[in-house]
């Protein structure tokens, strides 16, 4: 735990040193536009529909934020879950001319895509000023397409974490590893002790892309990462082979993978978390901060029975991969803009931050709001995103490649989990899919 703190703190320093974030203090009190006149509710009777992929606990938290907005403005906000595949949900609604007022996109790739389709509404100056006040240019950039700002990053995810069940590490007598070889060795020891070291969420393709991105960022370095993100180098590149071979080290041995490779492929997120903390069958899950939500549900306490360590170094770089959800307006209504402004404000962020499973990219949301130590530390890193940090590669890709069930990278990596010995085959298929998507 201490190590985590040190590494994260180091990153934070490095990031803020490199980043040229404006250091203006928050000049505006939160929620300026929305709450102009005390008492009167400016959006009374307005209906706003918001669509996001969240279900169950994440949905509950978000609904609380929406309720705070409703209470304040009088607007009637309805929430709709898009399911995992946001593109599939929004596509026909945009085509049909009946989109929700606000959609929360899980990938910046979609911002570009919908901007190209002219489906997005430019943000009003009020919203943009809120963004300028509260976000670093890096985050603002991720919500923009062709120089125009369309989105507010409302939720961030820290994807370079490995979660473990403390008891299994104690039982096996291993320490959290700091590099890949140590991880493989620790996994072996844990397997020897009679516990499966890894619980993979193979049925949720994005968990596998997250794993790949961490390994790749660390082994191939940030420059190659950027190139591969834009498909400037092919997936048949030797650097990809290296990363896949490293992944195979933890996927090939049957005693390493809980329920075997085919069992892992049927395990969705967050069932893989339940298997570790509820059913106590395995030791580690390689996934983001938001694992905290299902952990809390299983009754383990984050920081006690459930701890994390930073994703171990595979090569030179300590990987920090971030993800995030971007709220965009699909209709240009006062209600939609007011809600975006609220979500991007300090006030909205702090309401959300007090709930479990949330990290804010808003730099003015004080980390003190987070419910636990770990989130506080992670929050620091996120806010100060700079050169050392990379955004989730699959989310930057066209959604047909990086974010569609049964297609593209998700499918190929699932096939790879099924048979981790076929590195060449996986590369060929990845390149094929990438060519189709970047056509």
């Amino acid at each position, binding site marked *: 735990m201490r190590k985590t703190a040190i590494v994260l703190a180091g990153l934070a320093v490095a990031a803020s040193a490199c980043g040229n974030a404006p250091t203006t203090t928050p000049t505006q009190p939160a929620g300026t536009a929305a709450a102009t006149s005390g008492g009167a509710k400016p959006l009374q009777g307005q209906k706003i529909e918001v669509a996001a992929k969240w279900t169950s606990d994440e949905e509950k938290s978000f609904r609380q934020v929406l309720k705070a907005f409703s209470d304040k403005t009088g607007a009637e906000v309805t929430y709709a*879950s898009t399911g995992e595949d946001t593109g599939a949900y929004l596509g026909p609604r945009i085509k049909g*001319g009946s989109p929700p007022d606000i959609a929360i996109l899980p990938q910046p790739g979609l911002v570009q895509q919908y901007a190209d389709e002219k489906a997005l509404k430019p943000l009003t100056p009020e919203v943009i000023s809120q963004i300028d006040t509260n976000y670093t240019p890096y985050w603002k950039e991720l919500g923009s397409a062709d120089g125009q700002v369309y989105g507010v990053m409302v939720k961030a995810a820290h994807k370079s974490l490995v979660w473990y069940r403390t008891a299994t590490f104690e039982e096996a007598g291993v320490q959290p590893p700091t590099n890949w070889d140590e991880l493989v060795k620790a996994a072996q020891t844990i397997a020897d002790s009679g516990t499966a070291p890894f619980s993979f969420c193979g049925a949720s393709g994005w968990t596998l892309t997250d794993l790949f991105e961490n390994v790749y960022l660390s082994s191939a370095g940030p420059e190659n990462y950027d190139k591969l993100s834009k498909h400037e180098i092919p997936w048949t590149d030797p650097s990809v082979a290296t990363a896949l071979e490293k992944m195979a080290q933890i996927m090939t041995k049957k005693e390493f993978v809980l329920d075997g490779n085919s069992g892992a492929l049927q395990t969705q997120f967050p069932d893989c978390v339940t298997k570790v903390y509820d059913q106590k069958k395995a030791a580690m899950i390689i996934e983001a901060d938001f694992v905290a939500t299902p952990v809390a549900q299983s009754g383990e306490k984050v920081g006690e029975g459930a701890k994390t360590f930073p994703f171990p170094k595979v090569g030179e770089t300590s990987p920090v991969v971030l993800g995030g959800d971007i709220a965009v307006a699909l209709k240009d209504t006062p209600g939609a803009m007011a809600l975006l402004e609220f979500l991007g404000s300090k006030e909205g962020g702090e309401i959300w931050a007090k709930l479990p499973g949330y990290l804010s990219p808003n730099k003015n949301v004080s980390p003190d709001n987070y419910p636990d130590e770990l989130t506080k530390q992670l929050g620091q890193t996120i806010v100060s995103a700079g050169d050392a940090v990379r955004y989730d590669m699959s989310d930057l890709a066209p959604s047909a490649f990086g974010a569609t069930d049964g297609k593209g990278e998700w499918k190929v990596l699932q096939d790879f989990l099924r048979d981790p010995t076929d590195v060449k085959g996986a590369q060929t298929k990845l390149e094929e899919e990438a060519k189709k998507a970047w056509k």
Partner: protein
Amino acid sequence: MATATATVERGVHAGAPKRGLLSRGVDKLGGGAVQVVMILIGLFWLVPTLGLLVVSMRSVAVNNAEGWWTIFTKPAELTLANYSNLLATGFTASFWNTIAITVPTTILVIGIAAMAAYAFAWMDFPGRDLLFLIVVGLLIVPIQVALIPMASFYGGTGMFGSIPSVVLFHVAFGLPFAIFLLRNFFVGIPASLLEAARMDGAPEWKIFASIVFPLGKPAIASLGIFQFLWVWNDMLIALVFANPDSQPMTKALQSQMRQFGNNIDILSSGAFLSLIIPLILFFAFQRYFVQGMMAGSVK
């Protein structure tokens, strides 16, 4: 298909319980063995649904830990919490949406199809036979063919995502079968009745409303129940055309599907709620239901 429907109707209920054709042969197998086999088959068909019911009445944690059949040793775990949680979410709205889609569709299909069927059965106009053959041909057009064209049509007219858009799609795709079924029934109405009315100078709409429609009740009931269930249970059309505020239960449940284990409380109770009305209808009107399904065998 007409032969099939005709032969079928004779035996559904009437013939079944009697000693059958092969009785002697099967007697040699031993009645006991047949009984056991049939009980096993019956269980095989019954138990999965029972499982859903039990799962829907247990908490997520319990369901993730053990199979529903352990309920026989610890019935205390049963709870209605899943159902009250489900109703606390927006699921009630989707229940009403299902009704708002299903009921108008059924009424419209019956009304529009009965009119067309009457024309096909008892009016003379050029191209009648050809037109009816086209209707027969349209019976099995896959709805996939219309998804893309209608999405853009609805987009252009601003109907997309509304309940009427879903209803009209259902009505159109329900019509060929409905016309086919009712026309075949109406043809059997005694000509003398119609002639008498026409000679009295009764207008067509009146003949339709006061003679044909009432006489067609059995077929209309079959059609109605069948159409109702078909629309109630649809997922594909809702998936494409319904918005969150117009979505029926099937679509609402589908959006929870991705976290199967985690959302099993909502999924199981929602699935069970969604099938309770069809089941009630099924048991109440199973005679019509069976007829409707059988006549629908061309679909």
